[in-house]
């Protein structure tokens, strides 16, 4: 059975210095199930992931900590070792190199380190890995674009607004340019869209 006392200790320990470490863990969707958590990682500085906040789905098997936790990106991310399709992570300590003396925090820190130093030779996403190796500029640009689009709070909001306005029947291109011109103010954009 899951070692509840250890998980509680881990959560407390991890969140105590979240501001410094850049990683945090919370119960998933504010629930009470200790075996289903959500981790957050801030994108490392001086990488295309800088400024982004990445959410990670964490599931603890019954044998935790003697079996590794299962982690998967919720936030879309462009990285050779992370699936651009489903967020699966290719990291040895989440598989056979797991040790019971590692913690969720150390695992998240390892994931964070992975963002800084990809290992394209052991890719999870072959397309991304190819691009990383052959066309590094495009890789950087794409990774940054994805960070901007999916991993920033503001951009998350924008996406929601875009979707809402598109669903009201306005063309997406127009919605985006209008939102941009009014600095993301949804009401002003709507007004503008209706009057044009």
């Amino acid at each position: 059975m899951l070692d509840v006392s250890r998980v509680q200790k881990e959560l407390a320990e991890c969140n105590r210095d979240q501001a410094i470490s850049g990683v945090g863990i919370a119960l998933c969707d504010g629930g009470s199930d200790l075996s289903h958590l959500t981790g957050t990682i801030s994108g490392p500085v001086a990488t295309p992931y800088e400024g982004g906040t990445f959410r990670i789905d964490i599931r603890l098997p019954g044998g935790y900590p003697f079996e590794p936790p299962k982690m998967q990106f919720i936030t879309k991310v462009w990285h050779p070792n992370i699936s651009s399709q489903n967020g699966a992570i290719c990291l040895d300590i989440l598989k056979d190199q797991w040790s019971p003396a590692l913690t969720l925090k150390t695992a998240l820190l390892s994931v964070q380190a992975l963002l800084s130093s990809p290992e394209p030779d052991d890719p999870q996403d072959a397309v991304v890995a190819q691009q990383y190796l052959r066309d590094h500029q495009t890789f950087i640009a794409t990774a940054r674009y994805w960070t901007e689009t999916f991993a920033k709070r503001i951009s998350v909001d924008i996406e929601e607004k875009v979707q809402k306005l598109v669903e009201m029947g306005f063309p997406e291109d127009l919605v985006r340019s209008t939102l941009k011109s009014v600095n993301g103010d949804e009401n002003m954009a709507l007004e503008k869209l209706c009057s044009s």
Partner: protein
Amino acid sequence: MASDDDPASSSDLEASASAAAAAAAAAEEEEEEEEEEEDAAAEEEESETAEEAEYYFSDNDDAAEETVLDVLADGGEEECHWSVSSVRVITKESLLAAQREDLRKVMELLALREQHARTLLIHYRWDVERIFELLEVKGRERLFLEAGVSAIENKGRVLSSSPCPITCNVCFDEVPPSRVSEMDCGHCFCNECWTEHFIIKINDGQSRRITCMAPKCNAVCDEAIVRYLVSARHPEIADRFDRFLLESYIEDNNKVKWCPSVPHCGNAIRVKGDICCEVACACGIQFCFSCLSEAHSPCSCLMWELWIKKCQDESETVNWITVNTKHCPKCHKPVEKNGGCNLVACLCGQAFCWLCGGATGRDHTWSSISGHSCGRFKEDQEKRTEQARRNLYRYMHYHNRYKAHIDSLKQETNLKETIQGKISISENKESKIKDYSWVTNGLNRLFWSRRVLAYSYPFAFYMFGDELFKDEMTPQEREMKQNLFEDQQQQLEANVERLSSYLEKDFQDFSDDLVMDTMSRVINLSNVVDRLCKQMYQCIENDLLYPLRTTHNIAPYKSKGLEKPSEVSICWDSCQSSRSTRTCQEDRCPTSESTANGVAEKTVLGKRSEAQLQGSSSSNNGGYSSSSSSSSRKRDKIDARTGPTFDLNMPP
């Protein structure tokens, strides 16, 4: 048996042999070959066949007769010294001893404790020679490190004497020093956590390599601590752990494999040298050591696997039916094409075009159906039909012959009892001739060569077909090779049939002279057949396969068949001494009794056998149980061998 006035001198034999033209031809052929062989004696791995032949044709009449019979009769025992030493059967009882031999070598030469020797051997797949090689190359420290054996001297459990509590880095609890354990690597966690870790690893099938819990620590945990902690909570899991360690000698060892018998006989087979070979288990079954299916040489494992699959799904037949029947466009029943032209008529009266299946009228010529055109399918379809037909005929050709010999083998095996009866009648007859071992020997030769002959057909099917070697040979090369091979195959076939016919004779009713004549023919033909088998294997290896780029390993021909291997001995001196080492060890590790005594070991392995039985889906048994006919044949063999008699080490 050969008394001075023995009527059958070898000159008589030769005279009678010349009476039958065929037999004479065979004898001549043999004599010629024999000379060649003597020249090339050095190349021959075992020249015993040549020797026999030489005795046989020697001028020293009386001695000759006797020697032939003796050699043939005792051949099994006499000639098997080289192979007995290379193949051993490991039973439940001898597994510990077999493992101990290797453990002891490593313990002594590297001055290691048993558990560390075991860890090392498990890591290097019980390959003692390789360990010593690597010791030279890598040095002691790296060798140990890579295998997860930690610096042994680091041992000193001062820990438990310290009074203050220790924080376990896994559960984050503070625990008194009496409730923590330190491994050889120096890492220390609480006993609760260790136990949990061990149990998860054992249940996960990783007993043979349970590493330390510390991150990036590669050290393998002390088996005594594992045993001690786990048995305190789950004794049955501790038993399983011990069994896994014991069976590592079989599971993690390229040179040892479980016997694939179903139900499992509990034995394993160990070979020395090349693992591409065929072996027999003490339980009676014979198998290919590489792929664990029935002995299939001169087929390679791949050929045999393909052949079995082909025979099973009869894909050719299915192909045949699909290309030779079409469904009527009106009533949808399958219709077979009967005539030459492409208009077919269904029983329901509907006419349709064979090429496209479309309904048509009945007005047609050879080349066209009026009011219907579908020419673009025509050529393609006809080619496919033609190809499928050819493939089917080819397969049927080889399969029929393969099957015929397998059936003959079954019948002849059934004959064995009848012939045994004839032998006892003969032996009790008023006659000078008392020794009928030539019958049994001839019969065994027949079984063995019949087997070779049968498997030579699937071999030829793949050797000269498109599936495996299409791009490896030009059509001319292929034809040449095929002629060469078929020539040998036909010779073998003819002589096997002749041997079979002589063995079926009612020799118990014969006069002494006629018995002697039959004997000489049987012996003669046995030698010829053996020679031809050997030649066929040589031809396959040197002329057919050697020039190709792809490697197909064929298990070598064994003139004597597959001997039942002798068992690894349990109680020789060195074993005893190593047992006493073991006992010393036990004093240190009070928890390891379970493997130490043979009784526990037996029960443990008994469970293993059950597991094997149930888990017949395991890859080990896969190839075996898949073909029901062959496995039932094997079961017959197992049943048949229950008596203590095994004269020649031949297929029963």
